[in-house]
């Protein structure tokens, strides 16, 4: 299964990565190899097999719906790369900078 450079660029955008030309070349070749290997799965007849997303068959694990202590704002903001007293700060989302 070959993957094109353009597809690699598109996937990089979806995955929020930015690849250099050289990385795009390397990634195109390596992903091509790996996806080629995965063609193996095509051999398996999976008609009617329920997908298994999880190792345990547990569902609807609920906790009591009550107020519990959680991280206070300062502790949460303390790890932020860019912040003010109350909020995380990010570059402009809309319009011109």
């Amino acid at each position, binding site marked *: 299964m070959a993957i094109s450079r353009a*597809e690699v660029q598109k996937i990089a955008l979806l995955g929020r*990565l930015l690849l250099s030309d050289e990385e795009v070349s390397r990634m195109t070749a390596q992903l091509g190899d790996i996806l080629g*290997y995965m063609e193996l799965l095509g051999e398996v007849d999976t008609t009617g097999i329920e997908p*298994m997303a999880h190792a345990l068959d547990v569902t609807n694990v609920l906790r009591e719906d009550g107020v519990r202590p959680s991280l206070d704002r300062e502790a949460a903001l303390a*790890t932020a790369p*860019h912040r003010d007293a109350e909020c995380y700060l990010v570059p402009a*989302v809309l319009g011109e900078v």
Partner: protein
Amino acid sequence: MALVDRTASELLAELTALRATSVELTRAFLDQIERRDGQVRAFLRVDPAAALARAEEIDRRRAAGKPLGRLAGLPVAIKDVLCTQGEATTCGSRMLEHFRPPYDATVVQRLRAADAVLLGKTNMDEFAMGGSNENSAFFPTHNPWDLVRVPGGSSGGAAACVAARMAPLSIGSDTGGSIRCPAGLCGVSGLKPTYGRVSRYGLVAFASSLDQVGPLARTAEDLALLLEVLAGHDPLDSTSIDLPVPRYSETVRQPLVGLRLGLIREHFAAGLDGQVEAAVREAVAVYQSLGATVKWLSLPHSKYAVATYYVIAPCEASSNLARYDGVHYGYRTDERSMAAELDQERGRLQQAGDPSATAVGAPSATAVGAPSAAAVGAPSAAAVGAPLTTAAGARATPDDLDNPLVRMYRRTRAEGFGPEVKRRIMLGTYALSAGYYEAYYKKALQVRRLVRQDFDRAFAEVDLVAGPVTPTPAFKIGEKIDDPLSMYLFDLYTVSANLAGLAAASIPCGFTSGGLPIGLQLQAPPFHEERLLRGAHMFQQATDWHTRKPPLDQRQ
């Protein structure tokens, strides 16, 4: 025998009998780290002062006759994938180089409550992605048995520190073999518990349906001691199971009478190193001499396990790692140089779109993009720039340029993640993208069920499955680094236990002629850790592979 050569269970007996203090043995292991870690490089950080202070406090409480926890005074090393409150938790990544979590992982909390002495944080492949420790963003760990070779991964530091007698106990995590592979390559014992047996709260997530925390030590007896402390229900992890925790440390000494051992035909096929195969077959003969019966079985879907795993794990990883956005915690790109980069690119795209302009920019983007990555040492990001064509092949215009927030995400991640993490994000994003989801992700989930059904059938006939851990002994550092697919295929015997949600262990079962350790993998049905540990212990009672020491001092 020197303190550092004793097992954790022996050391605990010494402490309890007041024949040794926690300060003495903590100091002995810290000295050993001082002597050996310059070569092995198993630790990312060690805090001798904090460890000694803690040891002193436990000794004081013991002297005063106060109640103490199960591991009171025993040093334990922690893989840097587990959150330690207020202390750096890097996950082997530049992305988290300066991250200090505001809380402890549940297993860390359990270790503290058991009065263990936390020695330091061990090296690992970045975000636990890798089988060699070469993907650590900081430095590779070396195999104590042969320093030019890899220790295995991703819990390479966790295994190497136990092998080199720098810690009696350590904590690792295993998503596709990350405890068992390094345990095998470093000649120590390691156990991946059943998914759900140990809390994942505070474990930095890689693939959430596969990740599991587990112990590494020199003996099965020590694994039992440590697992007893780690295991148990945690309301903070909805996937942890509310089942009673057996007294592993007591039952481990009971041999399995009438043990039915299964051997898998597909595990002894092409690709298995001759010396590894010989050691594993020898180990099976040991079990037979102890009264076990052996049955050959087939797991018809085992040839698909690696492909299945390397679809599912990257899919989950690409989703989990979306959280590294440069906003909440971790690394963020330099915004000033980012703004300059966007300006340059806008200019270039405007020029390219204007037919009257003479210089229509080179088709390569290499000239664009401020080399902003120097600060984090990610040279790859220096040559980045918007392509002159869009992914659809149309001529790009300034409107196609990333908005500043998107570019902040992309530069942050380009600079903060290493090559293997990027590869897995790309793979996962691809396999989950529109048009490919059914062919890859859904298909892999279906094959996963078939892999599980194979094991269900096998465990109807045998109690434990025995086989190799890895196809070859430890390879040389750098040997596979440019060939990700061959690195992935190294996991072929270990990934199935994660896909199927089994309990599995690796114990030493021999050495190559060149002196490299060989591991024996034992697999048990879900939640049968007790059986696994008893099976491992009876082997260690009959053999002495687990007592061998790496020839580190002779080499110095």
